[in-house]
């Protein structure tokens, strides 16, 4: 009995001891694009990202504005955010496309950066 329990206990102990070494698991919950208040100012996209892990670390959130007709990327920007375990953060990403739209928004949160 002990010979079976010992290896299982060793694996569990190893798993528990490495649990603190995990990084974040970012998931984009929502995003909202706001037009500039005055001409010449950037568009801002607010992206809400949830860390679905107890791990912490730096996450890169990338936003793109795409022309729906041509699929060309009209603007792209990336910001980084430091996440703690199970934290939800909303980041604001500024974008400066050369046209006034319409746009298709594309956002992603990546770890590691």
């Amino acid at each position, binding site marked *: 009995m002990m010979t079976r329990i010992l290896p299982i206990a060793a694996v569990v102990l190893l798993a528990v001891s490495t649990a603190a070494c*995990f*990084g974040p698991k970012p998931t984009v919950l929502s995003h909202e694009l706001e037009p500039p208040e005055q001409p010449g100012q950037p568009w801002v996209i607010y992206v809400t990202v949830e860390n679905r*892990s107890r791990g912490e670390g730096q996450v890169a959130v990338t936003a793109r504005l795409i022309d729906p007709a041509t699929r060309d990327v009209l603007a792209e920007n990336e910001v980084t955010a430091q996440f703690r375990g199970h934290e939800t953060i909303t980041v604001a990403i500024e974008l400066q496309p050369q046209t006034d739209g319409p746009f298709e928004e594309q956002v992603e949160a990546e770890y*590691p*950066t």
Partner: protein
Amino acid sequence: MSQRIVREQGTQSVPDYQSRVRRLALIYVAIVLVCVGAIVLIVYQGKLLITLSQRSNVETLTLAFIIVLFAYLTLLSLPGFWGALRIAALNLPRLFGSDAIEVERRKQSALRPHTGEADAVFLNSRLYPEDAPDAPVELPVADEAGSLGTIVIDGVRLTRREATRGGSNSMFAYVEQRANALVRRRAPDAKVEIVQWATIDDEQGYQYYSLVRFSENLQRELQTPPLWPSYALTDDDIATLRRELAELCPTLRNEALLPDVEYSAEHRLPIIPEPLAFISLSRSESRADPVASMGCALIVALVILAIVVVIVLFPPWVPAR
């Protein structure tokens, strides 16, 4: 323990041998699937793994080494994978009610004759027929479907004559273990064991054999009882061995389709790790059964794959940019 796990695994009885060959075929299939799966996973998750290795100061080349290791293991196991598929294909008609002897005949026709010198192993004790101490014991490995050769026990030497290609030294290990069990019924202290494997180290084997021949010549010259430990096999023992070898034929035909990976094995345990390995413990075995050696390779491949999967599913913390 080392004999049953490393040197002669699954050779205690006919059912043991059958499950050993099944295990070996499955190990080859599993190694190829695990290694190909691992290579695909590493390539598919390349961006994540390279980023992690770069950010955590682990050489990215480690990933290349793992791919090379898995590619090497795949190449090494491909003949076994192919052999396992052939075993499955040739035995499949049995599931649909085909005649067992017909199936065995088809398997027999798939085997080619062995060329070159006959395989040999050497025992620690002489075995001889009870009624003719100087005669060899001949054990045909044959059934209704055909012959796989004849095992000849000539004193300490076991050879396989007129054999088919393929198979492994495990057949000798089977004869040794069964002969040992039969002899021990009359002489409980007897220990019949293979001590030299000519297919692994022929120089050592024939050096040992010459020493035994010397003792046999000296015995004849002095007209004394046997100088080398010797045990008689009765007619019943020989009949038992012949019957069991005939029973074993279908399994041996399956095994002959798998590659024969015969190597000695060495396990090293450094007390102080490299490069300052002033003290290390080592243990060597004169033969590693393919189930043991390829089984270890499968365990290593599985462990590495498991680590990669865990890293992909739960990326570790790395310092911020």
